[in-house]
């Protein structure tokens, strides 16, 4: 017995329609628009010179590292507002032990990662076991961590900053992995060929690609693979989409969410490590508002605030838009005060666009 009937109501969906059902489409379209806009308004200002590109990519990379992890957490239906102050917290943990007690930098970096993982684990544990909204729980940790960092730092050093870390970090084997540059030789060749401009002293305009950009792209690819091609990825979507259904099907929702809180915290630690080793200093106020910037990048990237839908690639484009706009406004000479207005508006537009796309994707028949 065959019930096979050709469904007369199936039609071939046009390419645009199929593209519209991908979460990252909005962010990619936005990126193209932003590049066009600054290509016209800031085309000759140096924004798209080698130096300018590295500048905005570096801004994007740092935010993008956070956004990649936050995207996964948000797809699982949770927020982590504490990452902003976790960056300050991790930075201080990295900087103080070498400066005050002569620790090797690799050890303090390790401690920072471990401490953040622990805080992330606590965040996750509290959210999962109390059933409180993660927004509230991590808002609490946002303030607690900032207060703890300030109090401890002032208690130990008498100040709220720690500087002069370069002295200790330059020789450490760990530094090149976070603050180094890569592709120095190809960059020199490109400069010889005239693709990349040279400075007055004859050296290439940039000496290499900051390693943070490699971290950013690497993490995005890894998280994309995790989401799309692993069992854990399926659990992430299910935990955010319909936690109860997931639980009924035997998905360990609690474990999935806690793991993602730890991963987000580790991303904050990575952000802090890069920032502290590049600048050579830590400040208790570092990372302020980064939790919201990461959410903006993720939302521009097509991830739903309610969870269950989104992508890490989208978050990457969200972070790219963020970097280009921030540096673009600087290069075009527009007052940088306008940056936040622009990003806020961009996010609202992105949310409207994304809810339209989702309604389209979910339209039944």
């Amino acid at each position, binding site marked *: 017995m065959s*019930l*096979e*009937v050709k*469904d007369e109501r*199936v039609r071939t969906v046009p390419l645009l329609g199929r593209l519209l059902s991908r979460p990252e489409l909005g962010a990619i379209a936005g990126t193209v628009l932003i590049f066009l806009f600054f290509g016209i308004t800031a085309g000759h200002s140096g924004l798209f010179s080698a130096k300018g590109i590295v500048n905005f990519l570096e801004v994007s990379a740092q935010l993008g590292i956070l956004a990649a992890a936050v995207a996964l957490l948000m797809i699982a239906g949770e927020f982590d507002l504490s990452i902003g102050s976790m960056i300050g917290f991790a930075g201080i943990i990295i900087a103080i032990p070498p400066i005050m007690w002569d620790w090797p930098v690799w050890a303090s970096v390790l401690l920072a990662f471990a401490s953040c993982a622990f805080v992330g684990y606590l965040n996750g544990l509290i959210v999962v076991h109390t059933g409180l909204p993660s927004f509230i729980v991590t808002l609490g940790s946002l303030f607690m961590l900032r207060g703890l960092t300030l109090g401890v730092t002032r208690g130990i050093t008498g100040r709220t900053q720690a500087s002069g870390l370069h002295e200790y970090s330059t020789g450490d084997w760990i530094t090149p992995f976070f603050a180094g540059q890569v592709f120095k030789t190809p960059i020199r060749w490109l400069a010889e060929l005239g693709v990349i401009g040279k400075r007055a002293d004859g050296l290439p305009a940039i000496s290499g690609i900051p390693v943070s950009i490699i971290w950013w792209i690497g993490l995005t690819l890894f998280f994309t*693979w995790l989401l*799309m*091609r*692993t*069992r854990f*990825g*399926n*659990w992430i*979507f*299910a935990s955010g*989409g*319909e936690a*109860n*259904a*997931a639980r*009924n*099907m*035997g*998905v360990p929702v609690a474990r999935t969410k806690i793991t993602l809180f730890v991963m987000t915290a580790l991303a904050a630690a990575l952000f802090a490590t890069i920032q502290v080793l590049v600048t050579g200093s830590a400040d208790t106020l570092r990372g302020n508002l980064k939790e919201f910037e990461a959410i903006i990048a993720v939302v521009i990237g097509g991830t*739903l605030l309610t969870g*269950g*839908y989104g992508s890490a690639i989208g978050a990457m484009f969200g972070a790219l838009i963020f970097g280009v706009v921030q540096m673009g406004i600087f290069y075009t000479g527009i007052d940088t005060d306008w940056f936040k207005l622009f990003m806020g508006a961009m996010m609202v537009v992105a949310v409207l666009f994304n809810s339209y796309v989702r309604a389209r*994707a*979910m*339209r*039944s*028949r």
Partner: protein
Amino acid sequence: MDTPLVELKSVSKYFGSVIALKDVSFDVRPGEVHCLLGDNGAGKSTLIKVLSGVHSPDEGEILVGGTHTRFNSPKDTLDKGIATVYQDLALVPLMSVARNFFLGREPLKKTWFLHQFDIEYANRTAYKELSDMGIQLRNPEQPVGTLSGGERQCLAIARAIHFGAKVLILDEPTSALGVHQASVVLKLIVQSKARGIGVIFISHNVHHAYVVGDRFTLLKRGKSAGTYQKNEISRDQLLNLMAGGKELVDLEQEIIKLSNGKR
């Protein structure tokens, strides 16, 4: 006669002072559809929860394939081949049909040194399993949210069968569906029966139950009001046995009286 796949013997369940179930016996055999009928509050939900391992009974015995057993958890029950399809269906609307089909039991493929989710296998299998049951998908990657209510129900049932369910417990599978959608689900129940699966069909819709059912057990206020073979009872008798039956007759009388009075 075949040994029942699962059997409850004089099971009782109390919640504090409330007697949710009292001395209820129930079983299902391979290739049989046993309908559990009853009004709201008759104890159907409690009975399902006992059968699916959510509650353990306070008195009575559970037998699986003729041997005494205990259900330690819903997972344990599932491992024993008894799958419950709840009304919420345990589906995630934003995820694709294939991802839902394998939710919690994702197929893995070894590449290099990593185990990845074999999405191609998932798509192929979900598509094939559903089309074998007469559900033609446009695309296994379409979100479940785009399926109709009947299709979702069928997806949940097909999933349970694919993963080796010998007993299917269906909780009101047709209650929220239109006529056509309900008939699709009823067809699937008949197909499952043909595969030798024992189906426990919970409903308060006698019309749907009578079409596919082989035996009927009525629950009333936590007690069994009898089990009947299909040839022992007519649809109307069944309707009357249900709480609604007598009340409907009374209601009819009252309406007649009212309209007579008006004239």
